[in-house]
């Protein structure tokens, strides 16, 4: 019998704690597939965040260094500077990266640290129960924006992929989503490019992955995907904002 599809070796068979319909499982798999296709699994050191993906070390079979909320890029900097041959990635949510860790991500990117960042944007704080994040859409109801997010007190949704693309140290910045099969394949290709930038020693690479959070959005999984396609992608255009080859090429969906 010919095997045409199987679980990547470095994606463990642990039962995840993720909710039904959550995007993290797919994204974990894309990361594991990419790392194995690049043949660097023995050199990988993962930096999980605080939040739902804090348990990353249980699901991805790499050495890992878990630290404080938002500090992943600083920790990854310390690891990579000490071990330049290691392949280092941080895996962060939007509360972790865009809010409490805004300084660390900005400066790691600005130094052109040779690390890869997988940034999962689901527009809410997942682990703590669906509070508003810097990425929450205008008008979106969350447990801390019960009347819908409004500009006067909370500002605007933060577009991280575009923001970081302006920095010279960033050699790859893209936004993808995991809302359907075609986009999952595109997301995998972007993650590969972000790791290749590190492997070639070019600089910093980030992939912002739009993901659904059915539980905290109070939606059935299928409804959440539809909502994300309609609303999230409008606020957060998909595409590559920085590539090693060229300038910003924003391909909206």
């Amino acid at each position: 019998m010919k095997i045409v599809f199987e679980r990547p070796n470095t994606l463990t068979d642990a039962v995840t704690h993720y909710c039904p319909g959550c995007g993290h499982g797919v994204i974990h798999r894309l990361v594991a597939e990419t790392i194995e296709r690049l043949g660097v699994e023995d050199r990988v050191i993962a930096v999980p965040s605080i939040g739902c993906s804090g348990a990353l070390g249980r699901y991805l079979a790499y050495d890992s260094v878990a630290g404080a909320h938002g500090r992943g890029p600083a920790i990854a900097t310390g690891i990579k500077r000490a071990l330049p041959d290691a392949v280092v990635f941080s895996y962060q949510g939007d509360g972790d990266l865009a809010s409490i860790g805004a300084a660390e991500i900005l400066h790691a990117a600005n130094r052109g640290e040779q690390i890869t960042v997988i940034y999962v944007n689901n527009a809410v704080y997942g682990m703590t129960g669906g509070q508003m994040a810097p990425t929450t859409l205008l008008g979106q109801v969350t447990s801390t924006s019960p009347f819908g997010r409004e500009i006067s007190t909370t500002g605007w949704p933060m577009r991280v992929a575009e923001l970081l693309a302006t920095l010279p140290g960033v050699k790859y910045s893209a936004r993808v989503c995991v809302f359907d099969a075609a986009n999952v394949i595109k997301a995998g290709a972007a993650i590969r490019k972000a790791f290749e930038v590190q492997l070639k020693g070019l600089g910093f690479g980030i992939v912002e992955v739009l993901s659904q959070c059915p539980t905290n959005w109070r939606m059935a999984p299928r409804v959440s995907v539809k909502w994300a396609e309609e609303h999230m992608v409008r606020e957060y255009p998909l595409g590559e904002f920085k590539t090693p080859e060229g300038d910003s090429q924003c391909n909206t969906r």
Partner: protein
Amino acid sequence: MTRILIKGNEAFAEAAIRAGCRHYFGYPITPQSEVMEYLARRMPEVGGVFIQAESEVAAINMVYGAAATGARSMTTTSSPGFSLMQEGISYMAGAELPAVLVNVMRGGPGVGSIQPAQSDYLQATKGGGNGDYRLLTYAPATVQEMADITMKAWDKAEKYRNPVLILVDGFIGQMMEAVEFKDEPATEPVEHTWAVGIRKEKRPLRRITSSHMDPADCERHNRHLKAKFDRIRKDEVAWEELYTEDAEVVLAAFGVVARVCRAVVERARKEGIKAGLIRPITVWPFPYRAFRQRVRTAKAFFVVEMNEGQMVEDVQMAVGYDAPVYFYGRNGGIVPQPNEVASELQKILAGGVTPREDRI
């Protein structure tokens, strides 16, 4: 042996290089910036890593990352910066990562002043970050002692897998003294069985974390840490005594204040006053037993600090209610002069001072 005239802060930096530290992450703050400036030049000479971080928060987390690979890493800061590092220090203690941290203390709270003080004793010795942890904390009193302690600090940090703190007032950090660096190389950094890195021959995965979501697991981890801290209490406590055997009044001070008190004690002895001095070299663990063993012979204890009274609480704990404990402090960057300490001592001996009492 090489004997050189060097500033305290630079002695830290040079001793760190000689101890095999090749990874420094820091953020400028007075009065410790000379450490950074020295290492910015020196680290490239020895093939090391020097990064000026965007904040003390980032600096301590870079130390966390480098320490997780087993690399000898270090950061240095001063009081407000040390407060910002507490998060990372707590995580390092929880994840059992070794590193050497330096706090060159200035006046507080808040911005306070940039001049020398001992305002962070309680933060350093009672745990500045969240959770149940301690740091082996040295309080050197001379530039030579700063260098000597720094040389062995990574050995201690690695032995216990816990950060080591060197707590020094800005005075020692800024003063120049002759220092002898011993020519024999420091212990070679070893390959640690817990450190993350390139996985050769499919060794088991290594995970560095302070997360223990299962309550029983978290309790077990805390008890494991407690046992370790008890070993440090027993084996690492260090202090210096001067004329304490027959002393009727025992002075207590650390850092530069101990040097002031030494002068006071020497002069008092010449005047026929039976004064002695206990100088804690480690402020955690605190040398309680050094004080306990003088309770029967000493009629009084006299603590001098550059703050409003922090170590005095530990002296009160050691002495109990068996003898009065007096306190004299200067603050905000003012170093107590021998004359004023001597005059306070005279007043104490004449019965004109109320003992310090924090146990109200």
